[in-house]
């Protein structure tokens, strides 16, 4: 067993169970909290490394919990759990440093892969970054540190390495939205869509910004939508 812990915050018992069982083989002890208040009460525990947080909970909602976590323990990484098709408030989550989303229902393999991906980011070495995926991961790491300009720079390096993939363009689009640069966001979502029309998050983001007055939810890749060839 490892020293550090993962905290699962969800009001639904079956999801807490499902996450605890899925994460067990990774070897990190898993703690659970049934709501935001209980989760915040556990933040004094210095061994918490990662929080898996449901955005939609009765009482204190996920974004509020995220805001408090980002104030009290900015070192903790957060994975956001959302219901299918509701990637609402993801731009707010990104502003608070949470870039990793997973949509319900997810398979145990997907949540394990995402957890390992998030935790491996801390060991990445910027000086040795040479490939698309590493730059993309460094961009996400920078978001976790609220360094949005740094994130933009890494995502743009990823694009330079492979302009035919959609993911980095989409991340650049999201980052421009965080930085209130709507036109640049649209431009990058469009580039992502052109690079890969089957990449759903870019299509959804483009639709959202170019219709309904641009006030819909933001769509960022979730583990459920990851390209199969990335595995």
């Amino acid at each position: 067993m490892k020293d550090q812990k993962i905290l699962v915050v969800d009001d639904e018992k079956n999801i807490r169970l499902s996450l605890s069982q899925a994460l067990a083989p990774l070897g990190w002890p898993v703690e659970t909290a049934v709501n935001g208040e209980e989760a915040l009460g556990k933040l004094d525990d210095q061994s918490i490394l990662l929080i898996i947080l449901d955005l939609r909970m009765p009482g204190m909602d996920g974004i509020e919990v995220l805001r408090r976590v980002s104030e009290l323990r900015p070192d903790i990484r957060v994975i956001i759990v959302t219901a299918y098709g509701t990637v609402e408030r993801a731009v707010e989550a990104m502003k608070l440093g949470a870039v990793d989303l997973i949509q319900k229902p997810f398979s145990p393999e997907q949540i394990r892969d995402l957890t390992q991906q998030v935790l491996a980011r801390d060991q990445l070495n910027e000086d040795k970054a040479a490939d698309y995926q590493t730059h993309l991961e460094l961009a996400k790491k920078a978001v976790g540190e609220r360094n949005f300009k740094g994130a933009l720079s890494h995502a743009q390096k990823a694009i330079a390495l492979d302009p035919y993939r959609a993911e980095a363009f989409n991340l650049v689009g999201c980052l421009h939205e965080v930085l209130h640069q709507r036109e640049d966001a649209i431009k990058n979502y469009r580039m992502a869509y052109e690079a890969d029309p089957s990449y759903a998050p870019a299509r959804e983001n483009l639709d959202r910004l170019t219709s309904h007055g641009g006030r819909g939810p933001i769509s960022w890749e979730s583990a459920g939508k990851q390209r199969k060839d990335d595995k």
Partner: protein
Amino acid sequence: MGICRQTTKRRQVNRVMAKSLFIVVVGCGRLGSLLANGLSGQGHSVVVIDRRAEAFDDLSAEFSGFKVVGDAVESETLRKARAADADCLIAAAEEDNVNLMVAQVAKDVFQVKWVIARVAEPARELAYRQLNIETVSPTSLAGDYVLRSLAQDK
């Protein structure tokens, strides 16, 4: 590089869990809830669909899967349940026609490799088989069981 190490470890962990399947159960009635509880208890990843949220009350406290409220006849509901990623889909709704339709959509549209449909009316089993859908008929099973028990007692 960090990513290479992570990939190797990921493969090792996933190999340990390789026997766990991703299963969608349509209908959370008596049969559906029994299957969902049992499969979840065996360590499989289960998504159960029902039109009524109250139907999920029949799931046990140990059920660790996902619940999706919706009509499985609509493909959006199957998409929500991530049917395209399922190793297996079990159509266990009350009505045979619903099960037939869901099973066909799962097989042809979502390309689920292993589809099992519950059929109440044994006469319909042949039609399902012609569509390459595995069936289970509680009526036939109960009938066969009784006939066999009586034959043994003679």
